[in-house]
């Protein structure tokens, strides 16, 4: 079946944790008749929401992995990616946004624009994703959607425009007033299935008229026809819709809708708005790089007959085997087609082609341009581009942050060891921010990620999904080493132990650089080091960066320049110059003011104002640099920069300090020098570990 291309909508649902986006997704599936019963997120009925299919998600009531699902609303095919709210899982949000054409930003009518909403919004901006806002939880005590709209304007700098007004709030929330049609919409029946359209209650009429005026003012900026119609008094609904769509697509207007997903109110108009205002594949242009034309940028065309180009944006190992989610940007994909992984050149046959519905799937024969599908048995990593072999295009790679925390894991027995290895292979393929390696000295397996919760979830998944028994060490911060001043080197590597000797002399200097982790500069003139050994020197220096002398952690921010050297016609070799470079680096490193760096996190705490002082205290005790505090009604938002090393267990501390009323998010901000006394402690511990390893 070929989907209606222009009507297709690929949307994401993003928001701050606990804003109710999974509940909203669940209701969307219900109203689009993909499911026939409604379940709570926290699984009180033992079933759990459809989109949170992982056992752990059901238990914790949070969404960890985005699940793709497909539904139809009024002939419009909609692909929905349910994205996680916790910042530790942000890569999921970013990957989803990369392949989406539009998004719904869910906001809580009580909590308003919270820290994670700001992060998510920044990501949407990065990928130029037009969005709608849905102010959820209008049935909650303290709900104030108009304040949330104000926050959208102030905090997110968005041109937020109300398309609806609430028909009652808190326990009196009945529905919404549609400001385009100027009608009151109520949602009746057991699950709000019956939408009744009525007149606006007289007491809300003047407020509605005023809000409609504002809507028309905002929308008319994007449509001369609407401006004329306003002047002539002949405004039609369609003119308003067209103008709103134009503003939304240009990312210059954010339509705001509202309701309560939990109470089944306002979801159907949101679906209408998704189809009306958000772009489809036909409205967006995506660019790829042509590897046969020196990576020249090419615009992909939404044409079914052109060569296939698709991006693998998510991998999952399901119970049926490895599943690869793809988004088609050009051409058509048929079951049985042969596709080529542009990165590896490997060809694969598409055996099974499916459309996902959370953890269930529907076999399809063909996927059209603009759609999202899933394939089985394709060997690739997340972010790979596939074509049908007629072109060699590569989609721009996605922004992937480096891990900032690591944890040692130890399987209890041989059987568990095998399973851990299997699990880690799977997780690292699925999630580019999750990394793993074997610590040679200790023989421990180390997992690295974006935060405590991130790693905790993977450990838990290993236990549950792979029945692995394992013990974990204390989480470790990903420290780095760097240098603070220039230091010269002039080192000769000479060895004569019978047979061919080794000879190489390398001279130059190393110094700090802000341009990336490592830079190598060749300033050799006159062939003091033969050209064929320059790369050997570079290789030798790079080998030194893996482990610094202070604490055995990677060295970053170093530029190494070579400006002199010497070679021997017989004894010089690749190995000799690598060794010379290693010796040279060691010689200079100690003189270059080496010091430790630690990851510093941007921490945002939202707390009732009465706990402001207490929260400030908790952050200050953690070497936090408190930057700002914003007070809004009864809530304070505190922003600080805190070293990651001090943030372990902070959620427990914050909970007990604020009677569980405060919450926080954190994300990596930058690397910063470790204070001297703490650095000395870390270095001492490392040296002791080294000694004990040796004595063993």
């Amino acid at each position, binding site marked *: 079946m070929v989907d209606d291309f222009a009507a297709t909508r690929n949307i994401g649902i993003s928001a701050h944790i606990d804003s109710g986006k999974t509940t909203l997704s669940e209701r969307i599936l219900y109203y689009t008749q993909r499911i026939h019963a409604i379940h709570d997120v926290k699984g009180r009925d033992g079933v759990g929401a459809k989109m949170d299919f992982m056992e752990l998600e059901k238990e914790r009531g949070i969404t960890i992995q985005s699940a793709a699902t497909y539904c139809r609303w009024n002939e419009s095919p909609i692909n929905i990616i349910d994205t996680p709210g916790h910042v530790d899982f942000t890569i999921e949000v970013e990957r989803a946004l990369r392949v989406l054409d539009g998004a719904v930003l869910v906001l809580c009518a009580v909590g308003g624009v919270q820290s994670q909403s700001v992060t998510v919004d920044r990501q949407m901006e990065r990928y130029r994703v037009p969005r709608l806002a849905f102010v959820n939880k209008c049935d909650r005590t303290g709900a104030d959607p108009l304040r949330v709209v104000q926050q959208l304007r*102030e905090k997110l700098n968005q041109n937020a425009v109300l398309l609806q007004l609430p028909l009652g709030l808190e326990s009196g929330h009945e529905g919404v007033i549609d400001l385009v049609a100027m009608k009151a919409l109520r949602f009746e029946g057991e699950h709000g299935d019956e939408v009744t359209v009525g007149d606006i209650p007289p007491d809300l009429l003047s407020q509605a008229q005023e809000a409609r005026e504002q809507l028309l003012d905002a929308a008319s900026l994007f449509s001369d026809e609407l401006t004329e119609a306003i002047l002539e008094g002949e405004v039609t609904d369609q003119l308003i819709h067209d103008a709103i769509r134009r503003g939304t697509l240009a990312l210059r207007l954010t339509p705001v809708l509202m309701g309560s997903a939990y109470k089944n109110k306002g979801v159907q108009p949101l679906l209408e708005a998704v189809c009306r205002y958000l772009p489809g594949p036909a409205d967006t242009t995506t660019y790829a790089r042509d590897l046969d034309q020196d990576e020249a940028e090419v615009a992909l065309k939404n044409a079914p007959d052109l060569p296939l180009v698709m991006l693998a944006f998510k991998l999952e190992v399901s119970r049926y085997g490895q599943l690869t989610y793809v988004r088609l940007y050009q051409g058509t994909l048929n079951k049985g087609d042969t596709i080529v992984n542009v990165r590896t050149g490997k060809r694969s046959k598409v055996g099974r082609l499916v459309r996902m519905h959370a953890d269930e799937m529907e076999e399809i024969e063909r996927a059209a341009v603009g759609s999202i599908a899933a394939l089985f048995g394709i060997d690739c990593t997340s972010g790979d581009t596939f074509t049908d072999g007629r072109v060699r295009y590569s989609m721009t790679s996605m922004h992937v942050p480096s891990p900032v925390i690591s944890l040692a894991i130890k399987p209890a027995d041989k059987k568990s060891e095998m399973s851990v290895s299997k699990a880690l292979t799977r997780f690292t393929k699925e999630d580019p921010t999750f990394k793993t390696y074997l610590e040679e000295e200790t023989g421990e397996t180390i997992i690295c990620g974006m935060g405590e919760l991130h790693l905790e979830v993977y450990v838990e998944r290993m236990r549950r999904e792979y029945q692995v028994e394992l013990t974990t060490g204390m989480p470790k911060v990903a420290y780095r080493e760097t240098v603070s001043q220039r230091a010269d080197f002039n080192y000769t590597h000479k060895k004569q132990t019978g047979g061919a000797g080794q000879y190489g002399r390398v001279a130059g200097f190393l110094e700090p650089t802000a341009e990336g982790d490592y830079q190598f500069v060749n300033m050799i003139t006159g062939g003091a080091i033969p050209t064929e050994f320059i790369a050997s020197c570079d290789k030798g220096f790079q080998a030194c960066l893996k482990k610094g002398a202070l604490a055995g952690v990677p060295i970053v921010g170093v530029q190494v320049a070579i400006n002199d050297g010497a070679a021997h016609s017989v004894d010089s070799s690749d190995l000799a110059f690598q060794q010379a470079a290693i010796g040279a680096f060691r010689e200079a490193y100690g003189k270059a003011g080496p010091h430790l760096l630690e990851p510093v996190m941007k921490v945002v705490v939202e707390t009732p104002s009465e706990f402001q*002082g207490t929260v400030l205290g908790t952050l200050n005790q953690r070497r936090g640099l*408190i930057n700002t*505090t914003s007070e*809004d*009604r009864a809530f304070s938002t505190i922003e600080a920069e805190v070293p990651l090393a001090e943030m372990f267990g902070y959620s427990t501390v914050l909970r007990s300090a604020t009677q569980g009323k405060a919450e926080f998010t954190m994300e990596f901000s930058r690397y*910063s020098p470790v204070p001297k006394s703490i650095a000395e402690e870390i270095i001492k511990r490392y040296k002791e570990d080294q000694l004990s390893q040796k004595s063993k």
Partner: protein
Amino acid sequence: MQSDQPAGQEAMELVRRTLGSPLLPGELGGLMARAGVGKTACLTHIALEHLFQGQPVLHVCIDGVAEKIKIWYQELMRNLASSSRDQLADLQRRLEGKRFILAYLHHTFSVQKLEQSLQNLEEQTAFHPALVVVDGLHFDHDPRATVAELHEFARRHGVAVWMSIRTHRHIAISNEHGIAYPCHDSDDLLQAILSLEPGGGAIRVRVLKHGVQYQPEHPEVLLNPQTYLLRYP
């Protein structure tokens, strides 16, 4: 950096001589101007001058987001510090360690709340500002009472307080010293009053009061209306 902008220290010296130095601990100063003329930029200049001297600053932003103030600091620092990108980042971090921004959104500001927040900061983080900048205060009801409250706050905490005061084109009230509404009846509480007057492609910084002296002589200083940086005429 703009060509008409004195570099680094020179600009700071300009601020110190014209705007920064008049206030001692416990004193109150006002910066008057119409909306959009550059009060926030000018207050940030004053704050930066203190920060450059190593004095902690509490920047209070009323009905505006903290992010906006942060951007002002970054922009002005970028223009004032004639240093490399690395040095600038380092300077920013050092200065940020001595600066704290408090934002009060949606008409939530009161001097009592400010007292509470300052107390929290002093007790919990040992942050003791030498200067408090109050930007965006409303003088809709009883301007004298508002000024008096802040004057008392400055005195009690032994901090210098600079505040922005918005004037209105349509209110032509002024006192015998030429001090316009809303400070016309509270100038006795203000140790220093500056005004920003746009015209002729620049914004003139005028000292209306300093100590007991009204309209004193002072070096002429202009604010570039494009960059909001201070410059000599």
